[in-house]
């Protein structure tokens, strides 16, 4: 992400907001992606996956009313070398042919007291058709230079980790580690 980001105390700013309803946002898919990283011997395999769609509604007055769900495009996942890309999409890891989507659906949100732009987002993630609970760290940003309080264009960063074994995505587990860290950056625009 080449954009300079500035954190912004959105959840707190919301306390004085006139909005009483969650605000719906549209995903800018072209500017959103998930980065992932997994240990590979002494190194890391890194890569990205496009975000197919997202359903995002943020309630700044009542954060617990917010919801974030994301669908990732497994078939276009890309790793930092060709064999890893092929292995990742193939039947022993994500099996994109049978399971083209990874989905995340939030079901709880807990704003951090000391850092109001940050929250813990609980939800369910489905990989290879297996659904497991997950907790992601979420942080909201607005592009640098935007006036405080502006909510038209935001970035949502989600971070977490999954165990490959928990989803049966165990291919090459003799060479590649189990824990995959995820780092999603979504660019969202307020819907009228």
């Amino acid at each position: 992400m080449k954009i300079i980001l500035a954190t912004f105390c959105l959840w707190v700013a919301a306390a004085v907001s006139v909005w009483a309803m969650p605000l719906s946002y549209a995903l800018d898919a072209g500017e959103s992606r998930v980065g992932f990283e997994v240990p590979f011997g002494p190194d890391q395999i890194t890569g990205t996956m496009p975000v197919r769609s997202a359903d995002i509604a943020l309630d700044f007055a009542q954060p617990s009313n917010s919801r974030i769900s994301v669908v990732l495009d497994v078939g276009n996942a890309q790793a930092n070398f060709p064999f890893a890309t092929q292995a990742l999409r193939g039947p022993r890891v994500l099996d994109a042919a049978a399971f083209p989507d990874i989905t995340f659906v939030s079901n709880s949100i807990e704003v951090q007291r000391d850092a109001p732009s940050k929250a813990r987002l609980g939800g369910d993630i489905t990989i290879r058709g297996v659904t497991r609970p997950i907790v992601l760290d979420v942080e909201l940003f607005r592009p640098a230079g935007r006036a405080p309080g502006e909510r038209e264009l935001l970035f949502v960063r989600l971070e977490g980790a999954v165990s490959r074994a928990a989803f049966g995505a165990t291919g090459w587990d003799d060479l590649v580690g189990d824990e995959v860290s995820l780092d999603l950056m979504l660019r969202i625009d307020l819907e009228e």
Partner: protein
Amino acid sequence: MGARNTDVSFGWVTRALHWAMALGVLAMLGFGSYIARMEVGMSNIWMFGVHKSIGIVLFALLALRIVWHFVSPVLESLPSGVAWKDRAAAWVHRAFYVLLIVVPLSGWIGSGATGLDVLLFNRVTLPPLAPVSETWEEAAFAVHFVATKLLALCVVLHIAGAVMRKDGTLGRMVRGV
């Protein structure tokens, strides 16, 4: 010295094939053992590609060698005077042909069964010879493992025989006569 073998001499084609494959097989035995035991990472994963590519080249050289032997048959081994030694030498030669088919073929089958492309020098994608299956992969690499150990044993016997006999056998594979 001609390309073809005669009744009393090895032509350069047979000798070139012999020494190219000797070098290749020796190197690949060591290299294969190394890559199978190293900690795989970004810096060395390319070595698998090199191993597979050289292995396929050796497989092709073997095919060429068999064809060439129909075109230009090889001469009879020199008798050592000891019957069991002559039989042992002949069996080691036969075993080489069998193992030099089984070893690369099992490597190719096992590699294809992983579901990853088998690439020749990062350019040509070879067709997989087996379905994507862990059973095929494990079986093929078990064969690759055992066959490479037998191949190493044959190499030791073959070199020992060639060096120990002082009747010009080694010399005519080097110089032709």
